[in-house]
């Protein structure tokens, strides 16, 4: 175990103070023997160390105390300054070495695999362990230098205008923000999307809803495409509904441009389902396993790799507690009714049989 880096295998869900929310969940999922892309976390301590070694703490506090949060330009300008301080400072070599060593060990066959750098955050001394959508994720990175640069970029994102003003709104002190970037092997995503372990439309706890599209999952999460939708019964595992939507664009990595582009989906694939039945069944199995483990409905991100055979190609990227329905107090739907009362109720229901009864 290093000082500044922890592998997913060394992380569990109770370590958000050290590794941030995302990494602690990824570690927990890894420990469930789920297929989580291999990765590691640059722990919170590393960021503090980076600031300390570069004497940035005071400078940041100085700039931050004058931010006018209701003045967008000011906010953007001052946080930008802080970001560039963090990004341009030299990363301490002891951190750098550890990151590079772990990066090279990520893949057996490839010393420099494609990775994503994702933010994993928390608030010191608080149970808040995510700021959904506030932090940046950087995809398809390759090479030690690039990885290091993006870890710094990720650190800097703790001072994005959005994140800073969110802390301000929630009354969270800036110094308490924890960021612990995650470096994770890139899934060469053929299809990706999200799973809810209840029906997000009506809260039906017996359904699993999978949404997915071609390419990277960001197209689904951001709402750029209308995804395919599959509704599955948790108990009998039947597929109840399957909507195949026209998916005309996908987010894919363009090796020439060296970045993720919004590409046009081949015409013959646009109206094809992005998941087959076998994949659906496996995703459902995984989702139920995760929900069972956490004991509450989950919102899960998944991806299917182009290169691996089934089922190793099915990856779980993230899981968090579903927030809308789970927080509602559960009122009885039926009330306390006897079998007779229910029978009686049914027997009194009018039905339509012919012409007159439709009026």
């Amino acid at each position, binding site marked *: 175990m290093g000082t500044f880096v922890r592998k997913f295998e060394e992380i569990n869900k109770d370590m958000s103070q050290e590794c941030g929310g995302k990494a602690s969940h990824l570690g927990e999922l890894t420990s469930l023997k789920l297929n989580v892309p291999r990765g590691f976390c640059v722990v919170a301590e590393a960021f503090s160390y980076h600031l300390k070694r570069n004497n940035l703490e005071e400078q940041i506090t100085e700039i931050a105390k004058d931010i006018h949060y209701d003045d967008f330009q000011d906010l953007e300008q001052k946080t930008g300054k802080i970001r560039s301080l963090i990004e341009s400072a030299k990363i301490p070599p002891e951190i750098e070495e550890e990151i590079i060593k772990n990066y090279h060990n990520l893949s057996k066959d490839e010393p420099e695999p494609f990775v994503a750098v994702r933010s994993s955050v928390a608030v010191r001394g608080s149970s808040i362990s995510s700021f959904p959508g506030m932090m940046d994720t950087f995809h398809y990175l390759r090479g030690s230098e690039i990885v290091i640069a993006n870890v710094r970029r990720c650190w800097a994102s703790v001072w994005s205008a959005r994140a800073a003003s969110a802390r301000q709104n929630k009354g969270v002190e800036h110094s308490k923000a924890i960021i612990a970037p995650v470096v994770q092997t890139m899934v060469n995503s053929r299809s990706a999307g999200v799973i809810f372990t209840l*029906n997000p439309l*009506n809260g*039906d*706890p*017996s*359904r699993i809803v999978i949404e997915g599209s071609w390419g990277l999952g960001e197209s689904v999460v951001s709402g750029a495409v209308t995804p395919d939708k599959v*509704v599955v*019964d*948790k*108990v*009998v*595992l*039947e*597929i*109840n*509904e*399957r909507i195949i939507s026209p998916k005309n664009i996908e987010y894919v990595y363009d090796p020439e441009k060296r970045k993720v582009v919004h590409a046009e989906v081949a015409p013959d694939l646009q109206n094809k389902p992005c998941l087959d*039945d076998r994949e659906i069944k496996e995703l459902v199995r995984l989702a139920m396993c995760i929900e069972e483990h956490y004991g509450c409905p989950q919102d899960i991100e998944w991806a299917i790799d182009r290169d691996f055979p089934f089922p190793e190609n099915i990856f779980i990227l993230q899981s968090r507690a579903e927030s809308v329905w789970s927080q509602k107090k*559960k*009122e*009885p*739907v*039926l*009330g*306390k*009714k*006897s*079998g*007779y009362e*229910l*029978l*009686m*109720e*049914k*027997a*009194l*229901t*009018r*039905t*339509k*049989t*012919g*012409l*007159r*009864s*439709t*009026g």
Partner: protein
Amino acid sequence: MTQMKGFPMPLELEYPKELEGWEEMYPSHYLFSKERGEWENRQFWYQDRIHAPEPMPPLDLIFFEGWQIALSQNTTRVFCIPPAQGIGHRIAGCYVYICAVEPPPEAVIMEKAERFGKRVPFVVEHYDEIWEKWLNKFQALGREMAAVKIPGEFPKYVPEDQVMPTLRGYYASYEPIEAFNTLVSLILKGWQYHFEVLNLSKLGYLTFADVARKLFSGISESAIGKMVAGTEAMMFRPNEELCRLSRLAASNAATGEIIKRDVPAEQKITELKKTEDGKKWLAELEKVKYPWFYISCGSGWYHFEGSWINKLDIPFSYMKSYVERLGRGEKIERSLDEISKKREEIVAGYRKLIKADEDKTSFDDAYRTVRTLHRFNEDHIFWVEHWLHTIWYEKIRDMGKLFVKQGMLKGVDDIFMFNRFEIPQMIEELATGWALGEGVPLRSNYYMEKAAKRRKILEAARKWNPTPALGIPPEEINEPFTVMHWGVTTEKVKEWQKGAAVVPGEVTEIKGFASSAGIVEGTARVLKLLEEIVTIKEGEIIVCACVNPAWAPVFTKIKAAVTDIGGLTSHASIVSREYGLPAVTGTGIATSVIKTGDTVKVNGDMGVVTILKRAG
């Protein structure tokens, strides 16, 4: 409000000219008529393709006559299900059309509700007792029918012992009159019993389905079915007995060898009689035959289907395949424990998802109610449609033999060409002729010609493709039995309205009810005739108009089932779920679109059948 485009109105329906004269085959009240026209035009009539997929032979209509009254009275006058009325019948061109009668006036609904509230809880509470009594009285009724004696012929002179020492007073002329009247009374009474609490069991099902849907808005009908379906059902007993006999045969090399031969059942029996072990096995077979071979080879609704007891080739072919499979070390029985366990797991699975304790209690109670009421739903089929009908057909054939013997009909089964009101006339004529003395002519030609003509009409009707419905459909179909049992839904009616624009060769995907979950691919075997059931090979997918519960033995052999007809609580669905096979029912067109040998994919989760590759 928009109405769906109508189907022909009942009296506007046009018939092929080969059907001319069909009306006289049936009782007059079964025909659409001007004097009831206004009422008839207000109802929506659809073909009862579950019970009457084929043109109706006049005598076989007696079961319909029985159930129209029995089912309806239980809803309207006995249990008084408040807004519901009966199911009305009509015949048009030899096909049976039925309708769920429009609801009664509001005042009547309130009146009925009061009685319903008193009567139904009583029934639910005393259900076990009621069921036991039912079985006793029903079996007594069947035995009474079996005891009816039909003379083989009219004697030249009555036997001595009817004259001396005591004059009996009534003689051979009276016997068939009484016998037929008794048979008719008993079959109608049997059908009254049939519905004793059946409507309630359906209502119980619907109640539970409602509860489940309130808790889990997305729950499918097949998932609900899985929680309710019984494993103890009598209907599976004949097959279980076949499994037992097959094991017994397989345990003895010589006996097993004989059962496996490719020869008719009669020949196997002759062979078996030659050895001690064979005789022992035959003795066991004899014990099983009554009542478990009193099962129709089809649905039980048509005389021509035959029953195991008189078509031994059918059960013997099933046993042949069982013995072969035992030889390969395969399991032939369904595991009842496993099925019950699976059901309990499903119920527990949903229960676990209910959050509020009050809801859990209500769910439990509704579940108990439906499980109690549902037992009858599956058990009665064996006793009524199979056991009693088999006895009825046997007795009616005895009567047919008498007609043949006395020269009034050519074939024994020609008796089925006459309705139950006509047969007494024929018996009376026989009796009269006999009583009048020697040399008195009968109108034999009249009856023989009539039988021949009616056979032709029925044959022509079989080739005719009549409209699936008559009258103006309601904009939405939600009468529960119509949907659940007959599989008639708003969408289905819309499809019917689109008409027969289907070119069978071009269709690659067929939609129906997702009646039993699972997805498989395999070779299709399209069954058009009952006898073809014995040709089904291991691992094929059965495609038929309608699955009969009596086909259980092939369900351990096939991969999936696809039917033209039937909703989610139809027998096809129940049997498929019992055997854990994917099924898509109520497709309307599967048997005309799919050909034997086609490679198809059955998706029982979605209710879709895809033709992947056409045969040859």
